[in-house]
């Protein structure tokens, strides 16, 4: 079980005299075995929430508890060893490291070729073309993004966090990605947290969380919350269209 208790993350504001709250006194509990999709407007604090869980950012106040243990002051490495993993929204590139070595490093030991191929196929990459390619600027943004997702799938995690996995991915690969998430949701990781704006990914979730202005604006079972969110979206669009027409 993952709990965030009164977690805030503040940074100095533009004037340098005040504070800007990115995460504001947030309380959240994610039960074991849950597939959660976090959504909400851009700049609302979703990625920061993911980074706080991974240990990339440290809360300015509050507590993060994982399986009853306070992990607030643990660093990234220590949290990774507890089984928390994070697929970056903008993954870095590595000159000289091949796709195969990166997958093996993620897995923790040398991965056989067939396993590497399976992970790459899951993200819509033709494996034999990619295994020995370097994860450098010769790969497109979408390719690096898919490899990033594959590295997380190559790990056995208690909590796997995917930060906007759909960003930069073409339509054909996206369909495959949705299938892969459907499958890992059931088999691979204990908990899956995906930050996403995509209805098809939200549709896979047990639970949806809407984050806006650093707070949880809404939270609930997908079947209940998703129709409401889509309704709000349609309503907003209709209102905007009317304003534009007038």
């Amino acid at each position: 079980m993952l709990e965030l208790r009164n977690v805030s993350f503040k940074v100095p504001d533009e004037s340098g005299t005040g504070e800007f709250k990115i995460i504001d006194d947030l309380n959240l509990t994610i039960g074991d075995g849950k597939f959660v999709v976090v959504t909400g407007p851009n700049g609302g604090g979703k990625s920061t929430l993911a980074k706080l869980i991974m240990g990339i950012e440290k809360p300015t106040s509050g507590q993060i508890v994982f399986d009853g243990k306070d992990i607030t002051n643990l660093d990234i490495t220590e949290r990774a060893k507890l089984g928390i993993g994070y697929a970056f929204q903008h993954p870095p590139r590595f000159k000289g490291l091949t796709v195969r070595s990166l997958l093996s490093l993620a897995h923790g030991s040398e991965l056989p070729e067939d396993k590497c191929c399976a992970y790459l196929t899951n993200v819509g990459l033709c494996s034999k073309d990619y295994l020995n390619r370097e994860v450098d600027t010769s790969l497109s943004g979408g390719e690096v993004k898919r490899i990033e997702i594959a590295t997380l799938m190559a790990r056995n995690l208690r909590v796997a966090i995917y930060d906007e996995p759909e960003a930069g991915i073409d339509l054909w690969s996206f369909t495959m990605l949705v299938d892969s998430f459907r499958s890992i949701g059931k088999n691979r990781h204990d908990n899956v947290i995906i930050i996403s704006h995509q209805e098809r990914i939200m549709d896979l979730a047990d639970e949806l969380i809407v984050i806006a202005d650093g707070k949880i604006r809404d939270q609930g079972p997908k079947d209940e919350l998703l129709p409401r969110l889509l309704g709000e979206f349609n309503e907003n669009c209709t209102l905007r269209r009317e304003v534009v027409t007038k």
Partner: protein
Amino acid sequence: MQNKFEFGASLQNIDKGILAEIADLKDTPKGAYNIRRNGEGMVRHSTENIIIEPKTDNPGIDITIKPNTKGETVHIPVIITETGVTDVVYNDFYIGDNADVLIVAGCGIHNCGDENSQHDGIHSFHIGKNAKLRYVEKHYASGDGNGKNILNPATIVEVGEGSYCEMEMVQIKGVDSTIRDTKAKVGAGGKLVMIEKLMTHGEQIAHSNMEIDLDGEDSTAQIISRTVGKGKSEQVFYPKAIGNNKCKAHVQCDSIIMDDAKISSIPAIVANHTDAQIVHEAAIGKINNDQLMKLQTFGMNEEEAEEIIVQGFLK
């Protein structure tokens, strides 16, 4: 010079360690070879197509590869295990037309004494027409004495018409001071690829000067330099590509800087012909924080992550 050479019996453990490091040799090499130890030729073996002979005027050897020799290898490692040795050696390679060979050179120093050990290898390559050469040279030094390990290689290359030459020059560890001078001329339709990989640490100093003349029509050259500077080490790179004809060249220098190291990368391009297309790129930077964080999310600590990034970069 030994008459009979058995890898196991003829070499001490330290020699075997160095040979494995610089030439990936764990057994008597196949093909032609010449092993030089502490300033003297130790063992030499020619084949039907590859003749290795000692020079009469200078220390060193002439390696003659007959035209049309395909798929053969030449190993010419140098080992220095005594302190205070200064070894200057001249090696000339004559690669016949249409040959396709691999030459593995390299120098390993194990200096446990207080005096400097130095090896200056002056290698000249004369590559015929339509030949293919892959040359790998590794430099490595170890030892716990106060004497410095110094390697100053000079490489001179003539790439003949339609020939391909790839040179990979690697210096990974333990060399206190190196000044590398490389000069090459590329003939019509010839292609030269120079790959330099270097890591310095402690208070080491490395200078590399390269001058590539693209003389022939449709000649091409690619210079790739990847280096890592750690500790208080200093590196200076000065690769220069000169287009004297219709040609293409690309110079790429990439360095990772760490600790208190200093790196200068000064790529130069010169065009003496309107159809010369020459490009250079150079970048020096520390390890990207996102790269470290990514590997930390795999459970590595910062030092382990750095090591993986450096090893991958220099691979």
